[in-house]
């Protein structure tokens, strides 16, 4: 039974989080830094509320990282992962090799033995999955090329931990500590005593089990569980799934984070994906928070006080070296426009895996206790600096790149105001604009792509260069006097922002928006725009109709079928929107019900349509025709 101690500890951790995190976010520092500072505050060197348990807490909280990778996996379709294979192994491999060579060489030059230097290179090559992904996700940077590359490299590192664990004992042998190197206690898995063939078979077996479970069994199990209607049982089975995958993979010597990530990917197209996400999310958040707090609490300040300059120097050196390696890697793999800066700054820290690897190296006597403590504190400080580096990128470096890219000055806009303004004259806006101009409308056209502007000008279009995502540009174009703004820019979030801004400040202005997808359309609908058009829907339906014709359907029937489809979609839009407003999970169920309804409708259309019968409208005349002959044949002639 846990006594009051347990609750007291929980109270301290929770209190620290509740106070520090909102404060840090308010200051724009991000939650990670908030947790770290909270950890430092309650740690042994400031308030001393927690101390001896931090390491245990940290081990427990590492499960948060595992959950995070599961959630990332859920967001990632297997195809997407497969497409990333080159980035994962190419960028990850480049980064790893360069890091080992450069960091190892520097370590050797500062006086470490060759085996120690290589070990340091291997350990320091890793970056912190927890900090990087949490921070990038919070800033919404995971989906640009810099963020995706960061993710790919982290994934590679997760895989690389296993061979590194195998390499470290070799390093110990190199250093002459042969008898401790193969200490079975050092890193053993459940099956490491079996011959290799069996181990490989086991790996295949566990992989197949995860895939089978995720692809086939999970769907039924989750449905059964969901049908009970007991939320906590669903939560329990979700956790069971993640823990099962983690244990399964660590039993065969792979990283549990990798295992749950794969489990997540396998489940990515499962219909319970969203429910799994919402169930696991709070656990992930809490455990990651706990993890960051415990990292903060375990900073050994006495060591820092003893050699402040050495440690500060090494921390800066580590960050500088990692940054250099990552920047080169990013450039080699084609990152540009400041994305390589994001990539390099985001990953320029040590990893939580480093803690495990260092304590393992300590056990097999590659490092002495002193060196181990030193390496750990360097990693911790490099982690703590990361949020600042990303802030530096956001506030100073990124704006500079944006300014550079937009160096071309916006065009002078005409004095004469048109009733229609088109914001965004790419492949979508161009068609809209041509139709309007062909019908004699005068339109003011803005586009933010200089080369696009240049090309279209050659074709005689009068368009103006300027950043259409900036309200000032639209104001200069005359939204105040215009009747309609056609919002055809390709930028998803910016279009929403602009629409909201104009709706608020120019209530008379009508807006016609191009929606990238249904959800975009919902967002626009929420803003009560006058016209909303999904960009791909109509052309997809048209192609569908052509295929129906190709497959032998008469053209008029194919045309009616496509129309029915379109109108049905329009009819249910409002209803779907209401469900979307209420609850996303419910929304998915509803849209499934609607598609069944549509099916029925089209079937009805096919079988009973008035147009499909030869005798059409006067069928009743037939039934009541008193003069009709019972033996019809040739009746009248």
């Amino acid at each position, binding site marked *: 039974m846990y006594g009051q101690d347990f609750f007291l500890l929980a109270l301290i951790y929770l209190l620290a989080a509740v106070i520090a995190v909102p404060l840090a976010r308010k200051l724009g520092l991000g939650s990670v830094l908030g947790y770290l500072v909270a950890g430092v505050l309650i740690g042994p060197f400031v308030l001393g509320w927690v101390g001896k348990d931090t390491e245990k807490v940290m081990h427990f909280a590492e499960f948060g990282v595992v959950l995070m990778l599961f959630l990332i996996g859920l967001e990632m379709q297997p195809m997407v992962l497969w497409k990333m294979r080159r980035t994962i192994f190419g960028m990850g491999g480049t980064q790893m090799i360069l890091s080992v060579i450069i960091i190892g060489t520097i370590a050797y030059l500062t006086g470490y033995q060759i085996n120690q230097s290589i070990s340091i290179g291997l350990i320091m090559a890793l970056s912190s999955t927890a900090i990087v992904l949490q921070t990038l996700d919070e800033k919404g940077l995971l989906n640009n090329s810099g963020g995706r590359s960061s993710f790919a490299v982290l994934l590679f590192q997760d895989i690389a931990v296993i061979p590194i664990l195998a390499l470290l004992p070799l390093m110990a042998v190199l250093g002459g500590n042969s008898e401790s190197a193969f200490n079975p206690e050092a890193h053993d898995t459940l099956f490491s005593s079996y011959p290799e063939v069996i181990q490989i078979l086991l790996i295949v077996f566990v992989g197949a089990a995860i895939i089978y479970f995720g692809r086939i069994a999970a769907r039924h199990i989750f449905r059964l569980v969901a049908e009970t209607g007991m939320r906590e049982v669903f939560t329990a089975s979700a956790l069971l799934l993640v823990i099962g995958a983690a244990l399964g993979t660590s039993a065969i010597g792979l990283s549990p984070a990798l295992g749950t990530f794969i489990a997540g990917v396998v489940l990515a197209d499962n219909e319970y994906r969203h429910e799994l996400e919402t169930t696991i999310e709070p656990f992930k958040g809490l455990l990651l928070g706990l993890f960051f707090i415990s990292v903060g609490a375990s900073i050994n300040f006495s060591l820092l006080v003893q050699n402040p300059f050495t440690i500060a120097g090494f921390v800066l050196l580590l960050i500088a070296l990692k940054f250099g390696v990552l920047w080169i890697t990013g450039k080699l793999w084609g990152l540009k426009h400041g994305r390589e800066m994001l990539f390099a700054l985001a990953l320029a820290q040590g990893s939580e895996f480093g803690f495990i690897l260092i304590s393992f190296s300590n056990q097999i006597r590659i490092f002495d206790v002193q060196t181990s403590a030193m390496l750990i504190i360097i990693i911790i400080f490099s982690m703590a600096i990361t949020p600042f580096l990303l802030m530096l990128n956001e506030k100073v470096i990124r704006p500079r790149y944006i300014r550079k890219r937009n160096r071309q000055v916006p065009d002078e806009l005409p004095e004469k105001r048109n009733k229609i303004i088109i914001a965004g004259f790419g492949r979508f806006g161009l068609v809209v604009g041509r139709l309007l101009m062909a019908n004699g409308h005068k339109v003011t056209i803005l586009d933010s792509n200089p080369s696009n502007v240049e090309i279209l000008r050659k074709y005689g279009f009068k368009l103006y260069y300027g950043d259409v995502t900036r309200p000032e540009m639209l104001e200069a174009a005359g939204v105040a006097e215009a009747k309609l703004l056609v919002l055809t820019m390709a930028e998803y979030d910016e279009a929403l922002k602009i629409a909201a801004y104009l709706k608020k400040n120019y209530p008379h202005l009508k807006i016609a928006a191009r929606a990238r997808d249904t959800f975009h359309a919902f967002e626009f609908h929420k803003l009560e725009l006058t016209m909303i058009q999904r960009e791909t829907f109509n052309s997809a339906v048209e192609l569908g109709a052509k295929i129906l014709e190709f497959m032998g359907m008469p053209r008029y029937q194919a045309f*009616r079928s496509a129309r029915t489809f379109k109108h049905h979609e329009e009819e249910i839009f409002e209803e779907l929107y209401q469900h979307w407003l209420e609850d996303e999970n419910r929304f998915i169920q509803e849209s499934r019900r609607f598609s069944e309804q549509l099916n029925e409708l089209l079937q009805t259309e096919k079988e009973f349509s008035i147009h499909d019968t*030869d005798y*059409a*409208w006067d*069928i009743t005349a037939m039934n009541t*025709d008193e*003069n009709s002959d019972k033996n*019809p*044949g*040739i009746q009248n002639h």
Partner: protein
Amino acid sequence: MEKILIILAHPAIHKSRVNKDLILAVSDLENVLVNDLYENYPDFFINVKREQELLQEHDIIVWHHPLYWYSCPAILKEWMDLVLEHDFAYGRQGTRLHGKKVLNAITTGGSAEVYSEKGKNHFTIHQFLIPFLQTANLCGMQYLAPYVIHGSHMLNKRGVDFYAQKYKKAIIALRDGKFNAGQLVTTSYLNDLI
């Protein structure tokens, strides 16, 4: 040999029992062209220029359709509204169709008896077809007696074959000028001349 243009307006010809066989019977005839409006213009966007050229290339026009609500299916009305333009089909300069012949080939669900003063529909087929007759008059075309199949839903396979062959004979006779010109106008149904 005259050239015949059959303008077909049937929204689901593939499902029809009678009209499909009628059309099949005449579609391979020399100098006879079937112009399926629903197939060519599923979105009702009729290519006026093409249709006018077709009219000019042919001597006899057949409006072939089931009788829907005492008239033709919607697309044929759309065709008339757009193709029979001022200065093409009517008006001082609209003489392009002068001298051509035109007729309706129709199927009705009800028997001949319901299309009479005492029948359920109170009027004869000829009374319902008056707008077509007057359209022909205004365009300077000669309006011929209609080819009519009554009680189309009550026809068995044999009946359908009979009418299809009869239709084929009528079209061939029209094409080859085998009918007595006076009778073509005075007879009640074109069917009766075969």
